[in-house]
């Protein structure tokens, strides 16, 4: 028994490179936002107590922001990848029993 994927599909190099590049771009954007959050908490914890709006402090606003940003960036990534898959008409092709 080999150790290849459970279902067979094909994606061209152009699509793979595009997805990898898009993923890395968004990963670095999010890592930067997360890194700043960790550093602010570590180096300037009192700044996190500052009330920003509606009576909520920076810690809460930034924390919620990180969660919501992760969801939004995920949707952006999926949108970009799906558009490229449609353009190249290769994404999600299956040949063995699977369904997408």
């Amino acid at each position, binding site marked *: 028994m080999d150790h290849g994927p459970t279902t067979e599909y094909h994606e061209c190099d152009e699509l793979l490179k595009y997805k990898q590049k898009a993923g890395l771009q968004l990963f670095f954007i999010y890592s930067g936002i997360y890194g700043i959050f*960790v550093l602010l908490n570590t180096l300037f914890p009192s700044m996190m107590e500052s009330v920003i709006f509606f009576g909520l402090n920076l810690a809460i606003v930034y924390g919620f922001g990180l969660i919501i940003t992760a969801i939004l960036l995920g949707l952006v990534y999926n949108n970009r990848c799906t558009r490229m898959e449609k353009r190249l008409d290769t994404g999600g092709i299956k040949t063995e029993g699977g369904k997408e």
Partner: protein
Amino acid sequence: MIYTASPFAVGIFFAVVAAVLGISFYFGRKTTSAKGYFAAGGNIHWSVNGIAFAGDYLSAASFLGICGMIAFSGFDGFLYSIGYLAGWVVALFVVAEPLKRLGKFTFADALDSKFGSRGIRLMAAISTLVVSIFYLIPQMVGAGALVTPLLGLPHWVGVTLVGGIVIFIVTTAGMKSTTYVQFLKGALLMVFSLLLVFLVIGKGINLEPSENYHDFITLQAELTDDSVTSVSDPAYTIVGEYSKNDLRFVKLEKDGISNWWKLETETCTLTEALTIVTLTDGAVLYNGAPREEQLFFPVGSMHEITVDGEQVESVSGLNAISFLAVIQESEVVRFIADVFTSGDERVRIWYQEVTPGNEILSPGLKFHIDEGSTFADKLNFISLMLALFFGTAALPHVLIRYYTVSTPAAARKSTIVAISAIGFFYILTLYMGLGAMISGVLDVESSNMSAPLLSQSFGTLMFACISAIAFATVLGTVSGLIVASSGAVAHDFIDRFLGKKLTDHKKVIAGKFAAVGTGIIAILLGIAFKGMNVAYLVGLAFAIAASANLPSILMLLFWKKTTSKGIAASIATGIVLAVGLILLSPSMFVRYGLEASAAPLPLDNPGIISIPLSFAVLIIVSLMTGKKDQPQEEKALIS
């Protein structure tokens, strides 16, 4: 605290367990091949897989541990929610699709896809087992904590019950039944958590959290020559005093019952505390009396409620934002734990501390990163956040879920569904944790019980549903972990490393035996680690996963000079360093019965040392072995 079982709660609990077992029976009859057993046939729809991802990931640590940590330490507990969710970004943008393309049943398939190396197989199998076992411990601890109030059974019975049910689920139908159990549980968890948050916010905030809440007394004290000589209520007699650093405790006796109080030297007042005193003959007293007397009260309340600068008794009509804003402006009574020995008594004490809301909702109550913190404290915090960020994408039971869908695009879409569901749930944890903090429901002995106890304040039905779902939460996650472990043993170790070339049927049988073995180990460890916060324990599993697995995955994908020996060496380094540093950490020294300060390293979380070193070892070994250790396809081209 003493818990009494409700027949109604027991009924709902067994209904959920029966549903889970029913799913296993149903899919068990359909699962015959290794592909079906280890990867659910590879044809789960991405939307189902996404919610199952959430059900798999939202473990006891997320529901019980994080809510408990927020209830006791405010925003610092929420940092776990933020870190756990952020880790999914790494999984989605970097790992999901490539891993799906390269692998079959386990993440070792992907790591080994270019090399055909037995070394990688062995190290990846060991890593999967170590990470899974570290992850299983908190799940089992959570199960034990849940069963006590729900069924009135001891901790070890809960752990054994979960272990037994999960072994049954996994050995009957493998990944298929695990997927649908996780899907069901993930969906129920989110719906009922949302309902609980609606109830918390709708109830508003009151100075008196409930009708039955114990009225903690404050007495005026008179000090002579820095010793307490009398108190304002003559019914109390002073029978002892103890000082520890800046803390001072006074033992008072009334009606033949003695208990420790905290002395506030600035105001010359004594505030009532909770204590568990162990005497030399082994007898244990709860607030000065045997446990059955029920003098050990649930805690957690507001001290002052301030709305628009004015103090009020209660506030209602709140929404998700104003609920937080009121807590930010007000003051909360927290109970802080300490331990000391006085004469022949070993005293565990929880004393009251009034904490401003702006401190509750900002960092510093658990992680010492505010003023007065040391460099090691800050390093510890960064280390934890690093491990949470990089750990998710390296957890074996998360990675195997990429093989249950048909294509890389489906893997991506299911990850996005997971991020949305998990992110939404983590926002809810803040409200559940804060709700428990101010609702007079906390059991100081078990932070893990905060969310179920909060639900109990809204009636037996809510408690029964939340507890049953929490139990299903443990079942779902433990099932995923045991499937991952069983794949590591049967597929990676026996089939690939030992080269036994098992038939499809024998591989499934081997996987089932491995599942039984892992389940038994998990039961024993779950009993041994009773009482530790489950979110903290899961943080350690993340650190091991991030150290052992992630450097290999990332370098394989993005560095062409990576070799099989580099990968094997990196995994070995990550496991040894992460586990070694955990065993030498201050928290573990306390667990051994030693002083935390005796630990050779001040770090509780090893990630900041073990992750970079694992990367470094991979690079150095790969550069040293580069020419001899080419990927299979390159060798083929040369020959």
